[in-house]
């Protein structure tokens, strides 16, 4: 299937340049530092926790903060990875190759998206490996741990979809990166106004990507949160397909 041909090419190309390697190396260094800090915190707290009944365990203290921070770091990094997806092809004039091949716009978009998602899933895998090492000496709450993996996976997939759309409409990669970063950050901080003077806006709360992420992180996998992410990803992919079709009409 041509969709997977495009995805495989995209994924392999990322590793042909130093880009993917640099991203993986730098991110992993940061994640490792964050992980060690969390482990340190746990060893300091351990004697106090031992006397409290129903105290938070190893998983609670290490995993959610680590995955939460990973989410924020990916918020900064994903726009840089997605900015070239469609915009770069257009600027290098290589889009003509895809447009004149017997491939639909949907296949081009989804193929490119899956290729990049491959790299992002590798990043998620790197984050996941570290808490797994704790199983050598301790015990992990498997349910909570899996919920965090799911939350981070959905979050990065959503970041990538939004980045893909901005790359499809922007004329310059930097504009695409800035646009997606701005949009994602806004969605991240959207519900910060709640709690101020007891104001509550249900709409803002629903739109906030952070709230849904944290709900999933707490181990409560409700369909509302999962559906939010699925709609987010599906919506932006559809917009991207539309924008590519429009490109043929307007150009």
């Amino acid at each position, binding site marked *: 299937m041509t969709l997977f041909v495009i995805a495989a090419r995209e994924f392999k190309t990322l590793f042909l340049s130093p880009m993917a390697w640099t991203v993986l190396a730098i991110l992993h260094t940061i994640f490792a530092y964050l992980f060690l800090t969390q482990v340190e915190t746990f060893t300091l707290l351990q004697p106090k926790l031992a006397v409290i009944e129903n105290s938070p365990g190893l998983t609670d203290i290490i995993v959610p903060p680590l995955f939460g921070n990973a989410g924020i770091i990916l918020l900064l990094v994903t726009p840089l990875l997605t900015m070239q997806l469609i915009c770069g092809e257009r600027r290098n004039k290589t889009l*003509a190759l895809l447009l*004149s*091949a017997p491939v639909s716009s949907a296949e081009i978009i989804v193929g490119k998206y899956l290729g990049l998602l491959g790299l992002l899933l590798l990043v998620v895998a790197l984050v996941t490996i570290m808490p797994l090492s704790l199983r050598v000496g301790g015990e992990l709450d498997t349910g909570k741990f899996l919920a965090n993996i799911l939350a981070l996976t959905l979050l990065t997939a959503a970041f990538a979809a939004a980045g893909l759309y901005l790359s499809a409409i922007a004329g310059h990669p930097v504009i695409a990166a800035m646009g997606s970063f701005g949009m994602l950050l806004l969605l991240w901080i959207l519900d910060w106004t709640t709690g101020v003077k007891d104001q509550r806006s249900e709409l803002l709360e629903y739109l906030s990507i952070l709230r849904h992420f944290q709900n999933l992180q707490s181990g409560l996998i409700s369909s509302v949160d999962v559906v939010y992410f699925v709609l987010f990803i599906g919506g932006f992919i559809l917009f991207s397909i539309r924008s590519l079709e429009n490109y043929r009409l307007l150009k």
Partner: protein
Amino acid sequence: MTLLIEAEHLYRYYGKHCAVNDVSFTLTRGDVLGFLGPNGAGKTTTMQMLCGNLAPSAGQIKINGFDLLDQPRSAKRHLGYLPDTPPLYRELTVYEFLHYCAQLHGVAKNNITQAIDHALQRCGLTSVAKRLIANLSKGFQQRVGIAQAILHDPEVIILDEPTVGLDPLQINEIRTLIRELGQDHGIILSTHRLSEVQESCSHVQIIHQGQLILNESIAALKQMMDTGIVQVTTRLAPDVSLLSALPGIKSIETLAENCIRIHYSVVDNPTPRLTETIIAAGWELQELAPVKKSMEDIFITLIRDNES
């Protein structure tokens, strides 16, 4: 005679600017169609529409019988396209790139190696197959672009200025390749060079300000170029009225007192009669030189006629 391309009443607007205005033509197997026109005439826009990179504002395009809008997948399967900038992934090697193109165009898995080897060989790329495209010279990159367009053995090959950036030897090779391919494919190529059309095409279309102003076979065009010109210099001023009475002479323009330019019909060449008359009249013939009329003249005349 299978119709490979049917383009009917194509229009394309960029905002209010009309880049292509009511262009219709057909292409059959064995045709090599040369697309000529000054800069900004609408050549590239027309080609982009034929390849599905650009939607026409109005009109219909059929590739090998498949409508490009209704059945894009089937239509594009029969299409090989080299845009004005070759679409190359610079970080890949030539072989990797062609492998990707073969997969994109749906070449069957067990035919891919063979198809790539064939294209590499045809475009003279075998020696650079393992090199990165980014490190190749412009001429080689252009050839990779051509290889990409003929790789999947499409029925219709569309080349936008295929010989740009090539040295004379390579240009010759590419022309030979185009003639070879032209035997069992339909080819459209655009160019600024008229000599190229004369060399490698069987049909020619001239497009100007978005409109087709000429659509002829090369043979018919040669007929249009039927008029020959000779420039005659004599020592004494010749009597123009006496000369224009000779059969076969169409018109005479006087350049100087003793220098005239004679337009004649190639079918009935009057040169022997002309020399006889001049010598008999005692004007003393000093020079008789043919003036070559090339496609360039026709091109310029046509565009001028169109503008006036």
